[in-house]
């Protein structure tokens, strides 16, 4: 048993971090804020060339043949750089949709609400990044279907919560061309939860780092505010929250790769639950540490909070995740 990140794994993550710092600096990402096209196609291709999308694809299928453990480290870096776009969907689609693996085709994903689910008859279906998508996949318990994004009668929604995640609404989804069955849908949900959780961990860490940097430099009452315990402890809690969530995500990814060490579905649900919470809470704390400036568009503190909210709605929401963990403790029916 050696649960440390290996040198190879940490080099891989460092490489992606450098790529993101060079290719997706915050100023360049923010230049696309509140537009319909926040995916940088050339940058997407570079992510593809770096292996972001075909990392877990078998070598004989043209992939790198690595595990979800490696992918989760890569996705943590993508989250840390706030790279916008359907990263998880395109990664999952590699091998199923031509061109997803090398980043030449941008693939999005939307969940088809199960009949009878709360809100299914009232709430419209909201799709992210529609204008940037070449292919839209539809996920349900029955399997995965494929739609032409241009064929949808979708309404762009003004003032998207995350200025880097434009959204559209449709009343319903047309029948999609089936491309995979229920088994694939089940592992997509699980791996999608882990990779989304990895993005959340990256953002939770980003929010912590930004808050700490600000707390060191901002002087009030003649001292940097980070010297006051009220602020220092807020930052310490952010660091702990990010670290615990990171460990949960890495353990879930390893459990998917090595299923004899535990139940991958349970581990994935736990990781997503803690990572969503870490990203949302750290995003909120980051704003708080920035005070009034945190409430403005001028400083980027709000970006992680908003993106965290977006990601928390995908691949399992808190209530459902907690219920599935409870089911692992004991079935919910009968005494």
């Amino acid at each position: 048993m050696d649960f440390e990140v290996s040198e190879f794994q940490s080099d891989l993550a460092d490489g992606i971090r450098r790529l993101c710092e060079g290719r997706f600096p915050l100023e360049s990402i923010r230049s696309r804020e509140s537009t319909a096209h926040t995916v940088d196609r050339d940058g997407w291709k570079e992510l593809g060339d770096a292996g972001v999308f075909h990392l877990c694809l078998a070598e004989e299928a043209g992939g790198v043949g690595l595990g979800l453990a490696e992918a989760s480290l890569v996705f943590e870096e993508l989250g840390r750089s706030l790279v916008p776009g359907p990263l998880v969907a395109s990664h999952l689609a590699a091998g199923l949709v031509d061109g997803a693996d090398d980043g030449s085709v941008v693939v999005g994903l939307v969940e088809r609400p199960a009949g009878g689910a709360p809100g299914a008859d009232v709430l419209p279906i909201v799709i992210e990044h529609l204008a940037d998508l070449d292919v839209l996949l539809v996920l349900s318990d029955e399997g995965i279907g494929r739609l032409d994004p241009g064929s949808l009668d979708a309404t762009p929604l003004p003032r998207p919560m995350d200025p880097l995640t434009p959204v559209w609404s449709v009343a319903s989804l047309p029948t999609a061309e089936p491309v995979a069955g229920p088994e694939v849908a089940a592992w997509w949900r699980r791996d999608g939860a882990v990779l989304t959780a990895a993005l959340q961990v990256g953002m939770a860490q980003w929010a912590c780092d930004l808050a700490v940097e600000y707390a060191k430099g901002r002087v009030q009452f003649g001292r940097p505010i980070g010297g006051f315990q009220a602020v220092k402890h807020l930052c310490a809690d952010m660091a702990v929250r990010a670290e615990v969530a990171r460990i949960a995500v890495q353990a879930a990814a390893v459990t998917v790769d090595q299923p004899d060490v535990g139940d991958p579905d349970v581990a994935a649900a736990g990781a997503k639950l803690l990572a969503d919470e870490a990203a949302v809470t750290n995003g909120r704390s980051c704003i708080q540490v920035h005070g009034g400036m945190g409430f403005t568009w001028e400083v980027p503190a709000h970006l992680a909070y908003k993106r965290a909210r977006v990601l928390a709605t995908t691949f399992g929401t808190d209530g459902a995740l907690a219920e599935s963990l409870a089911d692992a403790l004991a079935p919910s029916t009968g005494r």
Partner: protein
Amino acid sequence: MDLRYSDAEQAFRSSLRAWLDAILPSLPPKPSPDDWPGRRAYDTHWQRLLFDAGYAGVDWPVEGGGRGSSAVEELIFKEELERAHAPYVGVNFVGLLHAGPTIIAEGTPEQRARFLPAILRGDEVWCQGFSEPNAGSDLASMRTRAVRDGDDYVVSGQKIWTSHAEVADHCELLVRTGPEDSRHRGISWLILPMDSPGVDIRPLHTIAGSTEFAELFLDEVRVPVANRVGEENDGWRVTMVTLSFERGTAFVGDLLEAVELLSTTVALARRTGAWDDPGVRRQAGHLKAELDALWALTKRNVSQAARTGIPGVGGTYFKLAYSETRHKLGEFSLSLLDRAGLAAHDLEGTDGLGVLPAGTMVEDWLRGISLTIAAGTSQIQRNIVGERILGLPKEPQAAAGGKV
């Protein structure tokens, strides 16, 4: 990142498990919690059994007489003992985890020969005299005074939180040998025989009703200079050396106990019907996610210690997160007992299905309260994370002197 155990690690686990299966049924019944002589006899008997089987000081280096196991084997050891409900380290805690490792690292050959085998065999019990009524979080401000008089130190002062003092043979004692304001530069580490004239012990009842704590009053107690471990005024560093023996496994038993408490609580919720409430199920599910993550964090910390030999920052993260989770778990289990939790006593359920485990649950809830206080309060831990890990400006007191 590999969570699979190697063949050698699995072999260690299965032989330990076989030994536990064979030995545990032979143990005498557990003494009552307040019967301290009985508890000493029980815990030291268990230590002797471990010694005879080669499991004493599993985490001690071979040169100290220990087994010299890897950090991963130590994790397996603690995991298997907890799963088998083997006795807790109990009154042997200070000897095995603090005093022994300190003497291994800093003691003279004579001190090692005199004290180490007795700890490993369960012959002698130790207690700790570090904290004082006016030196808690700020330990370096301690004032218990030791004045040199010939071959002895004459020690006067007061210590607190001295667990197991009533049944201890020796106390690892921190005393002020430097000037009053010398803080961490004027402290020495002494071995105090507990039967020395001038030692007065007063038990201190905890909010959980237990009596393992004591106050220690020292009135001109003579301690031989030969009982000093390390140089005079170097006791602070000597104390810190022990911390490097911590390999991320300090809370393994505690954490697995919490996992079991969650199962017990879920079983109670199913019995009462509370489990049909989605709010209750979600709270339980959330606690499971937290406990699973903390178990994974333990494995990360142990892996790190196995490679580098020193614990990383993960231990501080663990303690902060675990103590909060434990509080939540305590509150959760208590809420399910409703008014049956108004006494720390197992009572018969009216459904005819046997007792309700209110005793364990209420006690666990009460004991859990100590976790954000003992071994560095959560507030001190947050200062450590903020200052040492995140690099935020120091507290004024911390800048002026040392702090644990």
